[in-house]
């Protein structure tokens, strides 16, 4: 039976996971700043990363309020160990080449848009409010990266081959988006949260249509890797967190 405190805990964990997804992906995209060959793309990437950092701040602040122990956005971002982060593994993967970055973003944003749409009608007012704001940003991101995927897929032989490989490499990380645990169940049942099975169907249809337009083959659903929800990460995560938390760990307790 789901108790009141189970629901409270689920809402807190859910808000943290949303924050972790946004922060980890934002952190990865930030690594690309000043490395884009085209100025317009430089501006777009900075915009998108800024949106993710902004969303992370909102979700962490929301988590802090739900927890009620006075923890701030920075406590969640900088003072938890990597094993305490519960982001999707897909998001912590290194950026790779431009095609890898675009494919990662397309796969995740296609999911995130649906997740946020569902969260807008969630009964947790805090999460719903942030979702309503974030969805506008993420719809734009998805449009942007989809346009790129179409160009890379339907561009040259080389670009087609490159993004096809990116898709094959990253596909195994997509199953995790839909393999919910008790937290997802609880949010769905007690707070009118997202129904992952339904989202998976829609995601599959949307991604399939996009890939078709990009003249790319949709990979088969084979073995899927997961672990993010349990805090079991890839080898890459430790380095991401080490950089992220560098100053806070070097000067404990300082104000910045």
């Amino acid at each position, binding site marked *: 039976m789901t108790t009141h405190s189970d629901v409270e805990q689920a809402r807190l964990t859910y808000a943290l996971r949303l924050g972790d997804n946004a922060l980890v992906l934002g952190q990865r995209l930030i690594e690309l700043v000043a490395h884009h*060959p*085209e*100025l317009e793309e430089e*501006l777009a990437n900075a915009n998108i990363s800024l949106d993710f950092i902004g969303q992370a701040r909102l979700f962490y602040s929301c988590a802090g309020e739900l927890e009620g122990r006075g923890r701030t956005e920075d406590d969640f971002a900088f003072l938890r160990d990597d094993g305490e982060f519960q982001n999707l593994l897909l998001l912590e993967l290194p950026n790779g080449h*431009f095609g890898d970055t675009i494919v990662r973003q397309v796969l995740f944003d296609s999911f995130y848009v649906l997740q946020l749409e569902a969260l807008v009608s969630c009964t947790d007012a805090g999460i719903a409010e942030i979702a309503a704001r974030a969805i506008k940003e993420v719809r734009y991101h998805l449009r942007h990266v989809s346009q790129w995927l179409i160009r890379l897929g339907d561009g040259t032989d080389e670009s087609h081959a490159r993004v096809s490989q990116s898709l094959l490499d990253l596909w195994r990380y997509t199953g995790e988006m839909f393999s919910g645990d008790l937290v997802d169940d609880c949010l769905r049942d007690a707070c009118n949260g997202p129904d992952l099975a339904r989202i998976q169907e829609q995601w599959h249809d949307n991604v399939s249509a996009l890939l078709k337009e990009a003249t790319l083959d949709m990979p088969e659903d084979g073995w899927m890797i997961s672990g993010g929800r349990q805090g079991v990460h890839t080898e890459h995560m430790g380095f991401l967190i080490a950089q992220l938390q560098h*100053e806070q760990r070097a000067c404990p307790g300082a104000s910045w």
Partner: protein
Amino acid sequence: MYTQGLDQAGSKPRRRDGLETDAQLAAFQARIDADEKIEAKDWMPEAYRRTLVRQISQHAHSEIIGMQPEGNWLTRAPTLRRKAILLAKVQDEAGHGLYLYSAAETLGVSRDQMVRDLLDGKAKYSSIFNYPTLTWADIGAIGWLVDGAAIMNQIPLCRCSFGPYARAMVRVCKEESFHQRQGYEIMLTLVRGNAKQKAMAQDAINRWWWPSLMMFGPNDEDSPHSAQSMKWKIKRFSNDALRQKFIDATVPQAEFLGLKMPDDKLEFDEQTGHYRFGEINWQEFYDVLAGNGPCNRQRMATRQQAQADGAWVREAASVYAEKQAARNAA
């Protein structure tokens, strides 16, 4: 950000014999003297056009290269708020680059050409960005000192005789002013922090103070093209005048922070109302300008790598555009 040494590079523009009459030149100068704005399609002497192309493109390149030293701390910014602010600032710089390139394009040179010149090492950018950002305090020092120096240089450019440049500068200056304040606020927070943070702030000033002063370019007697730029009202104040103004404004700010500029000769002169300061190491300035600074090669290598890594992406985009055009035509 600002590019110093604008009158360093390139050969002196020559008058186009037979194409520019004395009457044309006199009429042009009369417009300048009457404080009229010169617009892109107006007649202008070739030397004026070339001077502006060089200055505006160097300014644009500086914005783009300037993203690197600050970008170096984006992944390590100490709080999410600081990270978001720094990211917005670096994005502003990309935006400045974009409209400065556009302003230069009105003078008949393409952005592609300007970028090629940068990547080939033919074009210059501000030497200040060839210094490394070693600690978080450097981000504060860059905002406060480097952007502070940039504002001193750029406010007069809002009244520059060339309209598109002057108008671009109005917006750039508004954003730079915000950048400068965020830099000072980082420093203020650091000096109010623990001993390690205070030491970090002082160390940053020790490394950034002199290079910031060099941003105004050589002393007036060593700045040969300045007089012509002043006559054309591209430049409104001399290098030394702007440098003095910057020092006078900045030293009291350092005192408020409880930090010391690394100059034992720095002293307020009651009689003149200005600060006297020590000798700038011009050898260092010319060395960095010639490519021998701590990060010159690194900055260029990063840009060249980005350009090379993006080749297949640009090719894909243009092939896709061709395919689309063919489909639409069919």
